[in-house]
Structure formats: structure tokens, C-alpha cells
């Protein structure tokens, strides 16, 4: 018995002319990822990837059906209408918000899009399962396993990404959501998924659609429960991991449909997404397990007072900060998550321009994980037209801090916490930080004395050379700029 006919009822099998088109598409994807290793060629790479996608989607219409005719010839009007309708709604619905959305909201947009991809994979596999079940067929083992795996992973990616989206969009609280016995509940659901999967696979003939639905519900729940205990600051890592999940599930869907485009596209993204996730963890000096299971970001009440050791921070008004800056020669701005949330990058640029016009040297220190995602801060500052040559990476700026007069920390916290250098008990110990405390004066603009995402107090705030300026980054920077107008 031919696997092709068995597995793909519509006669969709490997090795036909459409597969040649998929090969071209796949080469485009690989080339694109390669070009994206450098900022100079990255944009071109993305376009090449898009061209590959158009080719892959296009040749699908000449994919042979059961009769051997290309898919497009056997298409019934209703199916054609639904296909094109959904496709065009998808184009408009994807392109319009994609163009409109603010740069600061990019991470949650990526989360949402990733979730939709995962949902699409799950739907394709669900269709195949129900279809086989309706026809009373038992697909070959490899396809049966691939169907179950892709539906589990795709569904988890779907629900998990929606939670990540909710957290970043602040529809849900960003803090880790923990409850008693959470890990036990997760373990039970995971076990239920394994049991259900085995029962469905062993059940074979006439495999139960009801059981399959329960499997989907369990995977959906596990996706939610897996992401809610993770803090908002770690969401980028989670999104990246879920991105890899969606890729893997799409690859499995490639086994289900015996389709090379899905096999290659899915395999590529599954692997590269995982590598990217690990790179992000390395940049934060954390392990993936620590990000996923540690619930970092829960406020640890006991660690609070000790870091401050009875000292109280000095508080300056924005006007005072203006005076401080006006008398400085060298200023370094450290933008952080708070600046990104307040969307203050344009105001910061304005202030920096004012300082520059006063003959003051201004640099920006960009920590690798500043903002909401690695590299996100560079994108935000570029949006505000901050010149590239003023941006300094961690290892380039750290030697310059001792000769800096004023460092202005805008809504950054953990990445400037000196405890990371020496306090082995601190959750952020070992994370590379910006040595802002070595500058003559440090101004920290923050909404309050609250802790950062790691949930630890920052002793920098009570250092002798540190002054605090409370308020949102945007308002503070605006007031400082006004104060500078007098000079």
C-alpha cells in the first residue's frame, strides 16, 4: 500500500513540480536568515524571505490532487471563495495593524502573530484528524504521531502566546501569577496530555474525536498555566520559545501533510528559534529553566531593607536635574524599560539635542537586554532619530563611566544594580551590568522606589553619588528640557 495515497487522501504526496517551487522557497528562507545576521543586509533578507513565501504559497495551487490535476483546477467555487476570502482578510488584517502599531508595542504584536500561527497549525492538524476519523481510516504511525504532537504544541503556542500578549499589553498583570500547588497542577495536566496522546495513538481505528478535543483543551490549559507564572520582563524569552514551538509544530504538520514546505520552514524556525531563545537567556545570564520555572519577579519582602541599610535616597526635582546637567561636560543616558513603556524616546532625543547644543557631550548606554526585548532599545532610539554613533554597547561604555559627569538612568533598574557584581545571594548576580555608579553623579528617573523585574532592591539608589528624580520618564525628561531652556 502506498503511503502517499493512505496518508494524503487528496493524493498530496512528495515529489512533484510544486515541491520544486517549495525548494526555491526554502532556499529563500535560508538565505534570508543568513542575511539577517548583519544589520546592513537584514532588511533585504526579510524581503527575500517574503518572496520565498509568495513562491511557496503560489505553487501550492499547482499541487496535485487525487485525480492528478493541479489543485486549482479541481477547486470548487465555495472552497475557492473561502480560501481567497480568508487570505485577503488575513492580508489586510495583518498588514494594517502591522504598519500602524507603535514601535514600543512590537513585542506583543509578535506574540499575537505567533499565537495565530500556532493556532493555524493546530487547526490544520485537527482537520486531518477529524477527516481521517470521518473516513474511518487509521493514518500510518508516523503521521498519527505527528498529528498529535503538532496539535499539542501548536495549541500550547496559541494559548501561551495570547497570555504573553495579554501581559505585555497590560491586559493582564505583568507580575508572575503564582498559586499553591501550581507545579503539581501543571504536572497533572502534562501527564493527562501524555496519557490522552497514547490512548489516541494506540486506539488507532476510529480514534476518538472526543478524546482529541479533550487533548486540545488540556494543551490549551497547559499553555496558559505555563506562561502565567513568568514575569513581564521575561516575556521576550517566552515569546521566542513559543516562536520555536510554533515552528516545530508546523514541521510536524509537514509530516501530517507530507509537505516539504512545512517540513523545511517549520524545522528551520523550530531550530533557529531555540538558538535565539538560548542567546537571549545568555544575555541575561539566566538559564532557560530559571526563566520558565523560577517565578523571578516575585517581590521578596525580606531582602528589601537590608540593601538600603537604613539609608534614604536623595530626591531631586527635574529643575535640579537640569542644573546638574547644564554644568556637566560629559553625560551618558541609560534608557531602560521605563523609558520604553513611557514612550519617551522622542523627548529624550529632544533633551539630548538641547544638551548637545550647549556643547555637552552626550552618549547613550544600551544594555543588551534594555527595553522589552534584546535589541528593542536600539530600534526605539533609531525611531527617534538618535544618531547611531551616540549609541554605546555595554563593553564600550563601561570604561568611560569614571570620566562621566552625569549619568541619567531613565527607567532602568536591574541592569544598573551594582549588586550584580559582588552579591552572590542576589538573583541577578553575575549579570553583566552598566557600571553607572562609577560616574561622578548618577540621576535615576523612576516612578517610585519599586523593585525591578528581578524583584530585588537596588542599592544604587542610596549611594552618595546618586540622586533620584521621581515621576514618569516622559514627564521628567520634558521638565528637564524646559529647565535647560534657561541656559
Amino acid at each position, binding site marked *: 500500500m502506498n503511503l502517499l495515497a493512505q496518508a494524503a487522501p487528496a493524493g*498530496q504526496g512528495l515529489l512533484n513540480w510544486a515541491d520544486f517551487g517549495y525548494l526555491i522557497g526554502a532556499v529563500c528562507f535560508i538565505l534570508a536568515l543568513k542575511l539577517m545576521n548583519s544589520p546592513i543586509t537584514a532588511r533585504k533578507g526579510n524581503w527575500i524571505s517574503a518572496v520565498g513565501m509568495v513562491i511557496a504559497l503560489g505553487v501550492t495551487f499547482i499541487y496535485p490532487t487525487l485525480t492528478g490535476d493541479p489543485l486549482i483546477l479541481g477547486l470548487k467555487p465555495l472552497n475557492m471563495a473561502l480560501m481567497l476570502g480568508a487570505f485577503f482578510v488575513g492580508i489586510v488584517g495583518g498588514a494594517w495593524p502591522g504598519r500602524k502599531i507603535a514601535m514600543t508595542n512590537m513585542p506583543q504584536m509578535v506574540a499575537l502573530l505567533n499565537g495565530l500561527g500556532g493556532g493555524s497549525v493546530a487547526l490544520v492538524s485537527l482537520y486531518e484528524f477529524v477527516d481521517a476519523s470521518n473516513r474511518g481510516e487509521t493514518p500510518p504511525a508516523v503521521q498519527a504521531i505527528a498529528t498529535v504532537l503538532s496539535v499539542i504544541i501548536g495549541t500550547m503556542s496559541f494559548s501561551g502566546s495570547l497570555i504573553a500578549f495579554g501581559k505585555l499589553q497590560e491586559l493582564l498583570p505583568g507580575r508572575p501569577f503564582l498559586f499553591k500547588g501550581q507545579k503539581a497542577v501543571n504536572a497533572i495536566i502534562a501527564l493527562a496530555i501524555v496519557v490522552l496522546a497514547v490512548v489516541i495513538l494506540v486506539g488507532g481505528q476510529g480514534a476518538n474525536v472526543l478524546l482529541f478535543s479533550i487533548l486540545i483543551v488540556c494543551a490549551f490549559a497547559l499553555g496558559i498555566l505555563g506562561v502565567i507564572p513568568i514575569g513581564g520582563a521575561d516575556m521576550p524569552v517566552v515569546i521566542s520559545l513559543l516562536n520555536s514551538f510554533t515552528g516545530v509544530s508546523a514541521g510536524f504538520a509537514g509530516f501530517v501533510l507530507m509537505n516539504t514546505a512545512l517540513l523545511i520552514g517549520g524545522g528551520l524556525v523550530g531550530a533557529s528559534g531555540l538558538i535565539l531563545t538560548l542567546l537571549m537567556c545568555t544575555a541575561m545570564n539566566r538559564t532557560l529553566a530559571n526563566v520558565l520555572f523560577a517565578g523571578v519577579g516575585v517581590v521578596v519582602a525580606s531582602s528589601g531593607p537590608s540593601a538600603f541599610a537604613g539609608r534614604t535616597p536623595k530626591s531631586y526635582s527635574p529643575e535640579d536635574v537640569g542644573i546638574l546637567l547644564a554644568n556637566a561636560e560629559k553625560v551618558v543616558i541609560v534608557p531602560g524599560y521605563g523609558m520604553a513603556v513611557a514612550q519617551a524616546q522622542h523627548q529624550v532625543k529632544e533633551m539630548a539635542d538641547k544638551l548637545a547644543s550647549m556643547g555637552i557631550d552626550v552618549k547613550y548606554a544600551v544594555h543588551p537586554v534594555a527595553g522589552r526585548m534584546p535589541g528593542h532599545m536600539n530600534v526605539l532610539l533609531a525611531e527617534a532619530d538618535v544618531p547611531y554613533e551616540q549609541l554605546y554597547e555595554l563593553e564600550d561604555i563601561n570604561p568611560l563611566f569614571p570620566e562621566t559627569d552625569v549619568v541619567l538612568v531613565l527607567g532602568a533598574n536591574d541592569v544598573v544594580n551594582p549588586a550584580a557584581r559582588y552579591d552572590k545571594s542576589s538573583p541577578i548576580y553575575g549579570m553583566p551590568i552598566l557600571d553607572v555608579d562609577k560616574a561622578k553623579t548618577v540621576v535615576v528617573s523612576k516612578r517610585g522606589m519599586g523593585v525591578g523585574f528581578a524583584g530585588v532592591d537596588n542599592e544604587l539608589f542610596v549611594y552618595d553619588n546618586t540622586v533620584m528624580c521621581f515621576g514618569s520618564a516622559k514627564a521628567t525628561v520634558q521638565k528637564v528640557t524646559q529647565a535647560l531652556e534657561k541656559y
Partner: protein
Amino acid sequence: MNDTLLLILVVTIFILAIFVGLEVIAKVPATLHTPLMSATNAIHGVIVVGGFLILARAEALPMYIIGTLAVLFGTLNVVGGYVVTDRMLEMFKTKKRSITK
């Protein structure tokens, strides 16, 4: 081609794709992590191909619904993914110009 050979072929393609995926990302600078995540996000939207294939042979209402949603979700993923990535990378272009200034 018999079943076993076909299976070997399919597994080969998948495994090689995984290795290429691992290799091609290795040395990317932190600045590009976010755009790269977004770019790979768009690529897994290739699941639209699967959506097309299933919707093409749908014959009953539930199947029409599943197929249509699969195509819709997948297309949103693809198009949104490319547009968002392009916007992020557009920013790098601005930077490049300011260097040459």
C-alpha cells in the same frame, strides 16, 4: 517509491532543516535578536500552505470552518510578521544613513 524510502526522505529533509536552522543563527548580534525573532515568526506562517491544502478538499460545514480559520490565522501570521519585521529593520536603515551623514 515505497513507504520506507519515503519516510526516510521526509525525516532527512526535516533533520537537515533543523541543522541549517541551528547553524544559520549562531553569530547574530544582540541588536538583531528582536527583528530576527519576528522574521522567523513570519516564516512559520508557511503553515498557510497547509491551510490551503485542507480547505481545498473541505466538504462539510465544520471542515469549512476549520479550514477557513486555519488560512485566516496563518495569513495574519505571515503578513503581519513580514510587515512588522520590515518596520523594525527600516529603523536600522535610518541609522545607516546617519552614519554616512
